[in-house]
């Protein structure tokens, strides 16, 4: 792909020279005198290099619409910018580059075109080209700080730590609390072997911003400083979830994704950010192209449920069922919704159907277990949870439920194992200490119960479950003492 990119970049440069000639000619009153015979038209917008047929229908429509706009307004850079963004946001980087180049030929001061080029070069592993383009952005739009910190990150990726630090500090001169720049400074310090400096920046930044990535970087810093316990506490909970720093120009490109998959992603991003109305609108617009699409119907139902409209959510899922009643996730989600609506009969029926349709669906087994637990059917719950954990369930909250079920079914060793795994993530999780102490009590091991709950009290003194178990342990010890004739 890069060879094509490189070839097309150079053809773009040649094209710019051609355009320059065009504009000079356009300024001359009598073309014949200057040697310009025919008036030269603005360049045609590039079409998809492999034709339209290979494009997904949504992308085809978006590209064609953008190209029509360019044809309608050939000298208007914003129309071409929209086309470039459409190509860019739909993973057609060669066409996007050509279009960005056309924009720059028309208007060399088009900062957003330079920015688009920078992003493409960066992704393609051409850091020097990306930096050149970002430098243009900086001179044209000096207040657009993402162009500055992005250069810092590219320097960082290229191993030029001092240049990276310089760029991050320049960002901070304009935007003194910029989280991207401060995060960059922390990363530069880590890369430079200065974990104490990194920790200082991150500790301060975490007061401004809560993000798993900052915990990850701080955990790394502590690890390198030998503060292993603190590192372990932070790192145990880290998710692979890098922060999305504020970058409106890049967001426009991402949101231009017109394929079905890109639109679904966009809906998910909107749901994640709590923009439910916009998410619903986006989902419904997408459904105009793909009526009765199951993943979209599920998202609409999800949004309705998040807005507390459970009956509507059920109606949407029933529509999904009419489209395909063999789709296991529909039955699973219906089961969950019916459970919320306290219709346990239908909740059970759909959970069973989901398991029947996809016996390896961990979530379906988990739902089955939840319903069994709600009915206090502990052994069926245990069986369902065994399956759930065989087929991919491994989150801490489900582990706690599993540990509880295992304890109640007398599978103490396994229950202990599940509590220990949750404790590996968070040593201060009171419920685990309480659960472990409870198991010791059930085994009549009062000494271990007392030791365990003491540790629980030390780590989670305010946890009501720890306190409750501490009381219970105390009672059992006193009872035991009485039985032993008052000896402790």
């Amino acid at each position: 792909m890069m060879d094509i990119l490189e070839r097309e970049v150079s053809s773009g440069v040649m094209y710019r020279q051609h355009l320059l000639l065009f504009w000079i000619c356009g300024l001359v009153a009598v073309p014949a005198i200057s040697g310009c015979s025919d008036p030269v038209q603005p360049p045609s917008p590039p079409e998809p290099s492999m034709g339209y047929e290979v494009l997904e229908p949504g992308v085809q429509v978006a590209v064609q619409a953008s190209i029509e706009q360019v044809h309608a307004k050939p000298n208007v850079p914003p129309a071409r910018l929209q086309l470039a963004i459409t190509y860019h946001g739909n993973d057609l980087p060669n066409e996007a580059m050509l279009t960005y180049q056309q924009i720059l030929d028309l208007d060399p001061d088009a900062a957003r075109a330079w920015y688009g080029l920078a992003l493409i070069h960066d992704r393609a592993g051409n850091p020097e080209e990306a930096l050149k383009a970002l430098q243009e952005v900086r001179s044209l739009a000096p207040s657009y700080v993402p162009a500055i910190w992005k250069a810092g990150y590219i320097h960082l990726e290229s191993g030029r730590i001092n240049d990276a630090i310089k760029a991050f500090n320049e960002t901070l001169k304009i935007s003194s609390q910029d989280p991207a720049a401060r995060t960059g400074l922390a990363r530069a310090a880590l890369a430079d072997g200065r974990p104490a400096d990194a920790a200082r920046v991150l500790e301060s930044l975490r007061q401004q911003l809560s993000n798993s990535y900052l915990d990850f970087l701080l955990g790394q810093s502590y690890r390198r400083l030998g503060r292993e316990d603190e590192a372990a506490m932070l790192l145990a909970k880290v998710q692979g979830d890098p922060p999305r720093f504020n970058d409106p120009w890049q967001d426009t490109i991402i949101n231009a994704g017109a394929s079905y998959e890109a639109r679904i992603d966009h809906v998910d991003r909107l749901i994640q950010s709590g923009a439910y109305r916009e998410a619903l609108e986006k989902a419904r617009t997408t459904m105009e192209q793909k009526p009765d699409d199951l993943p979209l119907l599920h998202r609409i139902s999800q949004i309705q449920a998040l807005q507390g409209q459970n009956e509507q959510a059920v109606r949407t899922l029933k529509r999904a069922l009419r489209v395909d009643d063999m789709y296991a996730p529909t039955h699973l989600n219906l089961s969950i919704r019916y459970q919320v609506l306290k219709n346990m009969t239908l909740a059970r029926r759909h959970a069973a159907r989901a398991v029947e349709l996809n016996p390896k669906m961990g979530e379906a087994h988990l739902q089955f277990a939840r319903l069994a637990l709600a009915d206090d059917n502990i052994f069926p719950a245990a069986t369902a949870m065994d399956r759930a954990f065989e087929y991919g369930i491994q989150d801490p909250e489900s582990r706690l439920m599993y540990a509880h079920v295992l304890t109640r079914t007398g599978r103490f060793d396994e229950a202990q194992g599940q509590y220990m795994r949750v404790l590996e993530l968070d040593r201060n999780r009171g419920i685990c200490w309480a659960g472990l102490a409870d198991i010791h009590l059930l085994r009549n091991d009062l000494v271990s119960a007392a030791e365990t709950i003491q540790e629980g009290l030390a780590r989670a003194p305010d946890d009501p479950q720890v306190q409750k178990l501490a009381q219970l342990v105390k009672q059992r010890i006193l009872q035991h003492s009485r039985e032993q004739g008052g000896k402790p």
Partner: protein
Amino acid sequence: MRRWRHRGLLLLLAGTLPVGCGGGDTGSNRDQPAASAADPAAPWFEDVSGPAGVDFMWKSGHESRFLMPEIIGGGVALLDIDGDEDLDLYFVQGGQIERALQIPPANEIGNQLFRNDGDWTFVDISEGSGADDRGYGQGVATGDYDNDGDLDLYVTNVGANTLLRNDGNGQFVDVSVTSGTNHPGWGASAAFLDYDEDGWLDLYVTNYVTWSVETEIDCFGSTGQDYCSPKNYAAPARDVLLHNLGNGRFEDVTTKAGIDAKMGNGLGIACADFDDDGWTDIFIANDGMQDMLWHNKGDGTFEEMGLLAGCALDDEGKEKAGMGVTTTDIDNDGDIDLLVCNLSGESDSFFRNEGSYFVDATAMSGLKTATKRFTRFGMAWLDFDNDGWLDLFEANGAVLRDPVDEHSDPYAQENMLLAGSPDGRFSEIKPRGGVAKPIKLTSRAAAFGDLDDDGRIDIVVVNRDAKATVLRNISPGNGHWVTLRLLDANGRDAIGARVTATVGSRRLTRPVLTSYSYLAANDPRVHLGLGTSSRVEQVLVQWVDGSQERYGPFPAGSTRTLRQGEGSP
């Protein structure tokens, strides 16, 4: 992670001791003095698959539906099947998934075995070899699980895996059921390792996704329907640890050993003693999830500590699409480093071992920008030009279609070769891939080894729906080399041992392993590029059981067999 504190001292002493112990010469001294600077434009490899008679194509079986396994396989192994001291080739075949999943598998095509007849001639001896497993194949691991002195094969499939016992003459017997290794599920990379140091090779199998044809889902990209990401399934799978009981049977100890504590979308594997505590640890590259480091606690159990050790995520905090893995001491500081490859747009992750934790040093090595362009799978850090510095080869191929015309392979990409240098940075060799004319295919597994015993590492690359590539090393320059084969007390390749070779003022530390790269099993021998040095002064071997012996000196240009018990203490 604890660190073995005495190693540095021992090495220092080792360097001062008189040499001359052990090590049988099984090869001639064919080395030549180093020549002057080589032509920088000269190719390092040439594709000899056609003339060599290696006619293998991994068939995805793709028709209309986009079934996920079609884009993941397939694997290849380099191993000496018949004891004639050259590397033969074993290819894992895909085929037609639904047929392969029938019991017994009804795939029309099976895995293929090619005997190395020397002089770059390979002969297909699959028929009647017993090795032509008919499952929908993904990867392969090699190891002498029965301690009879020859390498056996473990094939991972979509569906039940297969253990093939080598009788030493190129004949294999399927012992999957009787050995208890026919684990179902979607196996990817696997590795033999002696995790409990009882003298028998155990087996770790990565599993990719909990998947079936019936539950396959439709996914779309900008060019229409395409293969899904594992994230679309949200169905990570549990890996499997099988303990070798020494009687031909294995026990599933996944739960007992604590491996069931975490599931992932496992694809790549590398086993080595990363924390220098004397026990073999296991690193797993997961696709779209955190990579895992299973720390061997030495009591038969493991704990996952990738995040704490700093090798679960890169310095951007991303869960990358981990696929291939390579591992060695890249910076010559005596500990074992890691390199994981990922999707296009995501760089490789170079986790430099700092003793008790890893540091993401990808940017400082130049790999952050150089490796972003392609989607990488098979890979290795090896000294391909024998200049004394490890290089990097990566076999590439996309998992999402590029918009190309209907006659072209929309997943095809060129492979990459990057040259290592004394400053620790890598630079790409052009023409791309180190061949005169870049080869653009959808490459997956790459296996590495010296196929013609000339002291230069050759490469075999498996390509999706295209013929495999056999890359003969013709690298310019006349750097020196030594190849070491390590045999333990049982007479088998000492997988899990570690070599530290003193070459001039440098100490080159190399793990003995076959499972690295992607879905591949590699030459079990340790290859050392020496540059202009004319000999290895001394080799310190740390055997799997913790004992240490010294061997050497060895002149450049020779292949040596080091047997446990024949060195000096």
